[in-house]
């Protein structure tokens, strides 16, 4: 690929999902991340009880992310052909796991009142 710049990448992603959906997804990811940072700063502490549930959601997120990519690309585990494939697969799983953990942690923190369950 020639001139793989940030602008090119954004243009490609806009085409992939449609401009509206792409920026909606970016906004959703940004909002969840900001809310996560917000609750951390608001509570000025990591709640390990919430973090436990968040950790439990990680495998679910990992499997869901891999399943999603396999489904939209009509492929499966038998198509993994080399080292880079394993790395990409693990990266997708890790992304799904971290995403799920942040989402679950943030959701719990926003639902429960601050300071009620510091353990």
């Amino acid at each position, binding site marked *: *690929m*020639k001139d793989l710049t940030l602008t090119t990448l954004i*243009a490609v992603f*806009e085409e992939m999902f449609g401009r509206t959906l792409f920026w909606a997804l970016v906004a959703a990811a940004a909002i969840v991340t900001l809310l996560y940072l917000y609750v951390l*700063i608001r509570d000025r502490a*990591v709640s*390990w009880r919430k973090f436990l549930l968040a950790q439990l959601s990680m495998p679910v997120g990992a499997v869901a992310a891999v399943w999603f990519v396999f489904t939209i690309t009509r*492929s499966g585990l*038998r198509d993994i052909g080399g080292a880079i494939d394993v790395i990409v697969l693990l990266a997708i799983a890790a992304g799904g796991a971290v995403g799920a953990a942040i989402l679950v942690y943030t959701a719990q923190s926003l639902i429960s009142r601050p300071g009620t369950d510091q353990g």
Partner: protein
Amino acid sequence: MSRPLAASRRGFLGLSAAGLAALATTAPARAQTIRSTARIVILGAGAGGTAFANRIARRLEGATITIVDGRKEHWYQPGFTLIAAGLKPASYSVSQTADWLPEGVNLIAEHAAAIDPVAKSVTTTGGTRLDYDYLIVATGLVLDWAAIEGFSTDLIGKEGISAHYHSPEAAAASFRALDAFTDKGGKALFGRPATEMKCAGAPLKITFLAEDMASRKGTRGKIDITYAAQNKTLFGVPIVSEKVRMLFGDRGIVPAYDHVLKAIDPGARLATYATPDGDTQLPYDFINIIPPQRAPQVVREAGLSWADKWTDQGWLEVDMKTLRHLRYPEIFAIGDVAGVPKGKTAASVKWHQPVVEDHLLAQIAGKEGTATFNGYTSCPLITRVGRAMLIEFDYNNNLVPSFPGIIPPLEELWISWLMKEVALKATYNAMLRGDA
């Protein structure tokens, strides 16, 4: 247990703002625009012409840009193989030509009927005369179906005949023929023409996909697959040809070298091939036909073709590094019609863009352009549903991988499939808009 964080709400807001600012500054500055009253005519609103119109419309102020193409539909041709393998519907490759063009570019929905490079004018099929200062020939090529005796495009999808190069609809009809054949079994023939052709990997892809389809259905044992190669290789790049030979061996696909399809007998289901030892006939239950390919008549009649190369095909006589016509310096070629070795692909079209843009704009500004094209082309060579080889090469048969050491070009990989399946059309569309 708790761990206080040494951060404040204000600090957090400041951090977010800094992040946004950083994101905003990473976008590169747009290239400078040039004031000019030049009249630029682009022949063809396919991948090459459309992308180029979008690019120069941004760079030129005051210029008259006219694009000539009689086809209302824009076809995403890299999708045809996926349609022919039943992975995508025909609509996957169809959009409207007019939807991709920028404002300020004048579309004439007619074909070019004549080019006069001396008087610098183009006449359309509707009789409109367009005088130009600069001409971009991006007409693409024509598929010479008449060269295959006994074949007619009405037969596509019937009698075991497939021809997915024809159109998105023909690709869908070709899938129906392949689907029926792989249910039943028999002898399948694939192959490629002896002329230059668009996407030389496509005949191999459809062969691999047919084999994969039969394997998944459990009918592979009832099927013989022969691949008719036009010479003694399976691909123009020797190292890739060898790899394909090994994969064919692995998949039980039998190559028939020096076999060029010249006729079919749909009733008797016999295909006639020209070989160095004379004509030979092979029986088939399923055949995939890709005809010889040539420059459009209008280009050949204008005297713009090479006189001593590809004389039966008529590709435009251009410098292989700058794509500028060797006799008419105000004419450039983009895409399939260019008379350069290799690379009648969308990937090459993408790389032609900045080179022709550089030379054209430099010429308008009275300067010399500096960009050069090294013959780059790429072929995500699908070897089965879920795997592909990301093959990229140049004029000199060198492999030029975009991700050396990370994505090996001669390995069947899932990531290469992901790129073809997910990112390729998006990249193509971004290119059409002049953004990639």
